[in-house]
């Protein structure tokens, strides 16, 4: 007798393979449908303490320089230091008055000592935060002409030019730069690649920048890089990776509210766990009073079919974001809201036209086309689209708007193409837009 049955042995691997396949498949299905955002993963960050700690640290530095300035009220070094710290206060707390304090101090310094590259760069950084891109371009061109610290000035001017839709000049500036392996260069190149719609290369660049941040060991850089990378993985539809990267970002800066907001988006857009998304956003709203969260909460309420709640959240956002102290910061969101709100489309059109002056980016033209469509000017909308948007941006929101505009103009074939492309970024667009796109596509 043979100690074993050959025939039986031949069959066994097949059986084992079948079992593995069966369980593996079941596991894959289970795994892919399992919610990604797990509150236990980020419970440690859902406390106001981290932000309070960050505020305390900033307060210590602020008091240090405030005391110095009090003793020597005209000292421009102290004024510059404080201007930077007040801008950090705005970033940390969302208190827009701090940004204006920062600007006022910089103006004082600039008046006393004009033509200082450092001051011009700080003024430009604040102007960019205020979305005053034309103003920022003026400062950066002046700084670049002065000549000191050209590398940093070129990078900041590149930022502004990209916002202003001047991709040709931005590209030429980038080509002139010597330090092509520098972190600050890599992230600009990443933005350029992303703008061109080459997300895989943009991600590779950001990963290279992250490796530099790791090698430098700077927690601030690591947090910033990871948080950005997490956003980009999300845009690429790699949601679990995006989520894990947000978690890693939070480990380097537990007060990183941007990453928590990213996790709220995972809970909503991917998991459809509206309660969890609302819980995170509610927490953020409590410790960080900026208008942004209302807009996201309105979208979630809309997804839940709670139309009146959604409308009141939209109104709350509009009211907060219309505060003149915010300048241009929320103009594009306000325009988008007003475009589809009954009786406000004319106002939306006016905002979009203003926005074009400040930021003639393809996305602003996309908004102008959208506002025109909602205002009943469908031919004008199509003309703007073809002249300024098509082939100039791959943003999913622009693709979506393009699809609808073409559809309303009776161009069903190309409308279908755009809507299908937009649908590929379903996670990024969110469930509400995704449902709308599906509905439009079902009619085509």
């Amino acid at each position, binding site marked *: 007798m043979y100690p074993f049955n050959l025939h039986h042995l031949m069959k066994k691997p097949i059986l084992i393979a079948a079992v593995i396949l069966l369980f593996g498949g079941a596991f894959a299905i289970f795994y892919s449908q399992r919610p990604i955002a797990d509150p236990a993963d980020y419970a440690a960050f859902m406390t106001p303490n981290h932000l309070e700690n960050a505020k305390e640290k900033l307060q210590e530095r602020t008091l240090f320089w405030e005391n110095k300035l009090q003793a020597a009220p005209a000292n421009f070094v102290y004024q510059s230091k404080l201007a930077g710290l007040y801008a950090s206060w705005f970033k940390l707390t969302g208190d827009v008055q701090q940004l204006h304090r920062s600007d006022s101090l910089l103006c004082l310094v600039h008046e006393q000592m004009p033509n200082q590259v450092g001051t011009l760069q700080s003024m430009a950084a604040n102007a960019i935060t205020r979305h005053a891109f034309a103003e920022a371009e003026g400062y950066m061109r002046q700084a670049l002409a002065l000549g*000191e610290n050209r590398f940093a000035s070129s990078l900041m001017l590149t930022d502004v030019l990209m916002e202003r839709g001047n991709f040709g000049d931005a590209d030429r500036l980038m080509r002139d730069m010597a330090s092509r392996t520098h972190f600050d260069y890599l992230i600009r190149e990443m933005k350029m690649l992303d703008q061109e719609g080459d997300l895989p290369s943009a991600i590779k660049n950001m990963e290279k920048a992250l490796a530099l941040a790791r090698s430098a060991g*700077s927690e601030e850089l690591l947090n910033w890089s990871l948080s950005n990378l997490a956003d980009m993985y999300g845009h690429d539809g790699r949601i679990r990776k995006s989520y894990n990267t947000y978690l890693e970002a939070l480990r380097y800066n537990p007060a990183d509210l941007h990453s928590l907001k990213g996790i709220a988006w995972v809970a909503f857009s991917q998991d459809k766990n509206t309660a969890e998304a609302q819980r995170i956003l509610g927490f953020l709203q409590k410790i960080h009073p900026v208008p942004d969260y209302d807009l996201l909460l309105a979208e979630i309420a809309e997804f839940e079919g709670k139309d009146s709640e959604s409308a009141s959240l939209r109104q709350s956002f509009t009211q907060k974001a219309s505060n003149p102290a915010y300048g241009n910061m929320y103009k594009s969101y306000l325009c988008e809201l007003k475009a589809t709100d009954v009786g406000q489309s004319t106002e939306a059109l006016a905002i979009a036209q203003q926005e074009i002056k400040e930021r003639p980016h393809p996305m602003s033209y996309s908004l102008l086309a959208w506002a025109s469509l909602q205002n009943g000017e469908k031919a004008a909308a199509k003309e703007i689209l073809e002249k300024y948007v098509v082939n100039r941006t791959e943003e999913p929101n622009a693709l979506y708007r393009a699809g609808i505009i073409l559809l309303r103009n009776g161009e069903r074939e190309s409308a279908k193409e755009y809507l299908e492309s937009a649908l590929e970024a379903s996670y990024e667009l969110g469930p509400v837009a995704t449902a709308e796109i599906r509905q439009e596509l079902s009619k085509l």
Partner: protein
Amino acid sequence: MKNIIRAGSLLFIAFSASFLTSCDKDDDTNPFEGLTYQQEDQMGRPAINTVFVATADKDDFNETTPSAMSGKYATKFQNQLMALNAGYTTNALGMDAATFSGALATDVLNVATSGTTTFFDGINVLTGRTLADDVISTELLLIFGGPDGSANPNLTDDNVDANDKAFSNTFPYLASPH
């Protein structure tokens, strides 16, 4: 109704150049692979680069090897010296404008390996620098003070004679931030 907020749309703000000079880990002996390093700044004697190098030349000067500085920048330094003090003849070191400018343009801090270390103590000149040395007054004296240091008395002293807090006796010897 669509209110699309891209999770990442607000984070791409202009990044300041504050990271250019960050060196958090001075014990890192393995430079990142594939990285090209570039000279970005240098300073020898306090305030000399700040005062004598024009804004448009700053980047270039900061990248110039010290041995090439005098050849490249002595004339510009001399123009700036004469613009600051049109009556300059020689200074307390007996240097005429060309000699002094050439010496200044090589923006390094000389150090004598033996003897007293000082920027200027009345006897020794530029044998190094200690924290308490009144470097700015010394420089002002050499620029404005004429052959015996008595010219332009209002311009030869910064009237800051000491740090406003005692230095430490241990490394890094500076006073703590205050």
